[in-house]
């Protein structure tokens, strides 16, 4: 599909803001960028949908939630998915993440065809190679912040890399909240914990379904900046569903869905371009 070049968002000021907001230790930043693991790779395809269709219901009540979708998400790229309600955004995300099965077509996760995996392999793939951020209810109420963050590692029986853990925690600004439980955190803090959890296992891709849908715009911005920062700094491939044109501009690329089909796509999106594209979609 689209040829891709290393993209930096033009609104650099916001990025600087976000870094200032979330990172208070620039030394950490330096050690991070020097880490060979985290070298920004730009041209590999992280995840890809080929002729993907998803239907619900039987002959009479047939709903084509996804209709022959072809799309790829490059490693290190931040993509937003937009579209009217019911256009199939969540369905696409769920299928990409192996939470749901396609009716026809394939999802390639790196070199792996998801349709060849059984349930347990899919579970393990989610645990080891994917990160999730949902709109709400992201955390286990009985677990502390720390436990919630390292949950995927715990499930795999792995010890967290302490340095990386601290980096992630510091960057989301939760260092002093590690012993708190979800009901002692604000909604924004809870979402930040969810993002930290998504990052901690160094996943190939983070999927986020309206991660700021429940937050006020300021808190939402902080989360988005942080995601953007993670993409920029760690080369974290990220796919995010959103309804908010401003939120969409934090991404390198916006994909528009309608009736289960990809209708449009923008690179380096600006708010007015996104709004124009949405108008075209409605028209």
């Amino acid at each position, binding site marked *: 599909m689209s040829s891709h070049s290393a993209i930096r968002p033009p609104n650099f000021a916001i990025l600087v803001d976000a870094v200032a907001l979330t990172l208070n230790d620039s030394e950490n930043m330096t050690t991070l960028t020097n880490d060979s693991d985290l070298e920004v790779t730009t041209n590999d395809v992280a995840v890809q949908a080929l002729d993907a269709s998803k239907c619900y219901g039987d002959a009479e009540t047939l709903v084509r939630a996804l209709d022959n979708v072809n799309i790829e998400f490059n490693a290190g790229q931040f993509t937003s998915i937009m579209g009217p309600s019911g256009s199939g955004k969540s369905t696409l995300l*769920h299928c990409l993440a192996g939470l749901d099965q396609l009716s026809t077509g394939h999802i390639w996760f790196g070199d792996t065809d998801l349709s060849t995996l059984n349930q347990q392999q899919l*579970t393990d793939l989610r645990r080891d190679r*994917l990160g*999730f951020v*949902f709109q709400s209810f992201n955390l286990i109420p009985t677990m502390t912040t720390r436990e919630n963050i390292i949950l*995927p590692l715990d499930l*795999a029986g792995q010890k967290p890399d302490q340095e990386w853990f601290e980096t992630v925690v510091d960057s989301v600004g939760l260092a002093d909240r590690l012993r708190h439980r979800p*009901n002692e955190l604000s909604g924004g803090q809870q979402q930040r914990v969810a993002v930290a959890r998504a990052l901690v296992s160094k996943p190939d891709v983070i999927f986020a379904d309206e991660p700021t849908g429940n937050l006020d715009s300021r808190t939402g911005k902080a989360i988005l900046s942080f995601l953007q920062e993670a993409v920029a700094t760690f080369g974290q491939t990220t796919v995010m569903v959103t309804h908010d044109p401003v939120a969409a501009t934090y991404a390198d690329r916006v994909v528009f869905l309608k009736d289960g089909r990809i209708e449009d796509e923008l690179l380096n999106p600006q708010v007015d371009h996104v709004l124009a594209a949405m108008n075209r979609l409605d028209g």
Partner: protein
Amino acid sequence: MDTKLVRHSFRQLLSNKVRLALTSFAIVISVAFVSASLTLSTGISDVIFGWGETQAAGLDLVVEPESPFAPKNFEVSPARVSDDTVELVRSVDGVADARPTLWSNFLFRPTKPDGELVDDKFTVSTFGWVEGSNFEIVDGSPPRSNEFTLDIDTAEANGYIVGETYDMTTPTETRAMRLAATTQFRDPNGTTAGQVVQTISMDELQTELGQPGYVNIHINIEKGSDRSSVEAALQQALPEGLVVLTQQEARSNLRELVAPYAQGFSGGLLGFSALSLFVACFIIYNTFSVLMQQRTRELGLLRAVGASPRQIRTSIQIEAIVLGLGCSIVGIAVGLGISYGISEMFHSAAGFPRPDLALTPTAVALSLLVGTLATLLAVTAPARKACRVPVVNAVRGVQPDTKKTPTVRFIIGSLLAVAGIVSITVGLTADATTRSTVLLLGVGSIFVFFGVALLNSLWIARCSQVLGAPLARLTNVPGRLARDNIGRNRTRSASTAASLMIGLALVSLVLVVGESFKATASTGAESAYKSDNILYNQWDYKYPIAVAEKLEALPEVEQTVAISIDLAEIDGEVQYLTVADQQTASDLIDFDVSERSDMLEGVTHPVIVTEREANEKGIKLGDELETRFYNGTTVELTVVGINRNNAAGGSSYYIDRSTWFEQTKQTTVDIVAIQSAATVTESQFETAMERFEQANAQVNVETIDDFIASTERSINTSLQTINAMMFLAILISFLGITNTLALSISERTTEMGLLRAVGMRRKQLRKALRYEAFLISLFGSLVGVVLGIAFGVGSVVAIPASIVNSVQIPVAQIVILVVLASAASVAAAAVPAWRAAKRRTLDLVNA
């Protein structure tokens, strides 16, 4: 509005089939047990009382010896109603007919056509044949010498043929007797109460009993004569020691006689049903509190659009009443099935007669009431709570804050526990009568129990942290989730655990008491006898002393001592005593006398008392003990010795056989201690004993060790029967665990979706849920076992030392019990855990 709400409420109820099924199940099963217990206890009382009714049927007056209390197994001596008495009664004006009656329930047991002893599990009652009695011949003629008759039921069930000859065993021999007739009761309502009822000729029965005379005289008065004047005339004519009873009095005497048995049965059953109701209430309450929590949001919505809390409560209560009533009706039907099952169990385990099981109006009404009321009570508190949640929180689905310390619970719980402990302490220490001790202990235990059940919610979270620590370390996430989930709704976890706690507390209580009882019985038997063998009747009935004499005549036998065990009222308290010949007893019985009076020679009615009893009652050497026997005669027993051991047979008093015979005229014995001759080898002795047993089919010879083993076995059997019932209660609590878990799982659907989305495997999720059940049940079991052991030890201390004198805690059995209970609850949780883990992740996430 209200009817709309109610309709909505029902639609809501019907919309979730699994939830409805689980809720209904809890109610149905509890009502089933209540109605089963009621039906069974009526049925069984009818059987037991029916026997008395049958015997009192069709007579006007009864003449019988005065008897302040019933002797062991009602085995009365016939000596006090003689032929002269019968003649005297017949001569009284207005007496139309006077029939002497005589019966025994130990002497004769016929073999069946297939050669086996008839019905070796239940009683055989043998009556002396009297013309005009309440027996009626169905087929054949009255029994003459060497003939017998059988009740038609037994005859038909076993294929007896009138006119054929069968082997009849008596304690002293087996002889051939001809079946002269089959009989039935003249009274159409007459019942054999599941016994074998036979008659033989009066002469033969008297000969076998070793005495002439009768048990009592049944009288019919002349038509037209006044019953009370005949009664007065009879009383005038009769010698002292004989009393005249009206049919009413005779009937109520008979009732009184068997009442303890009926009460024992129905008391046990009702206790059991109270227990299952108790457990069921916890389950119903749990179920509804989960349901209400799940519906808080929906109820909040209703309140947001203007329904008042009162309207909502009413609609929920109406829902509960309808549900409770419906389920109670089903429960009554299921209960009838269960009662059939239990009566079959009794029948095959103990040969107990199958009662007529019919639903009485009382049972139906009570079951309906209990089921409906329990459901109504169970919903009230949760509904109230659901309405107390602020509307905003309810609509937004904010979880109630469970961190808050439930102070009311704490106060009530502590008060109950303290009151219970005080009551138990008073019961154990105060110098009270047995009845009030039992009452204090019982009430105290119930208080402690409720108190602990309430307090459990305070420490269940902390306890599960400790108990779950190894699990969390071992399995990490699943273990930790399980451990921490228990603390999320402590009240609910605690009441889930409570239902198991009750069951295990009772089982371990029974185990402790039973084990202590067993230990007392076996050390008693071990230390009481110096002989190497023992003769006894397997049905615990008496047999003629002639058996002991026959044994002693054998060359293989060195010596025998015959022992009778019976009841007497000593110093105002009816107690067991042991009868033995004081000249020879010490040869084979180890008295281990600690103090002996040297005035033995001059004493006519000596008694030896155990040290423990003497200390308890303050009895000293030379004391006179006022003693009354079952036939009303009284003597002063003189204490001539204090012995360390319990008496043979477990009583606290030894009296001389001459005293016993003088007072009761009984010549029957319970146990014969046998010393084998030194001149014979073991195998020679065994052969001789086998030959003896063959000739005397109703008695067994066993070595002391075997005798102890078989005593323990029979104690075990009764313990097992009690525990089988308890296990049913425990079973209900497992259902409760499954139920609560299943419901609370549906509360956490989204959370489980999240876990699955971030990579929790199905297996790990199942594990987490099973561990949760495991921890709750482990907590419940442990608290239950601790309470049970404490109550058990308390009971052992409270039970008179003559019955139980050593505290035994069967640690291994209790550990096995806890392990089994935990394993079973893990198994019980497997189903909801499997169901939850089976669901697609996406469905969970989107739920």
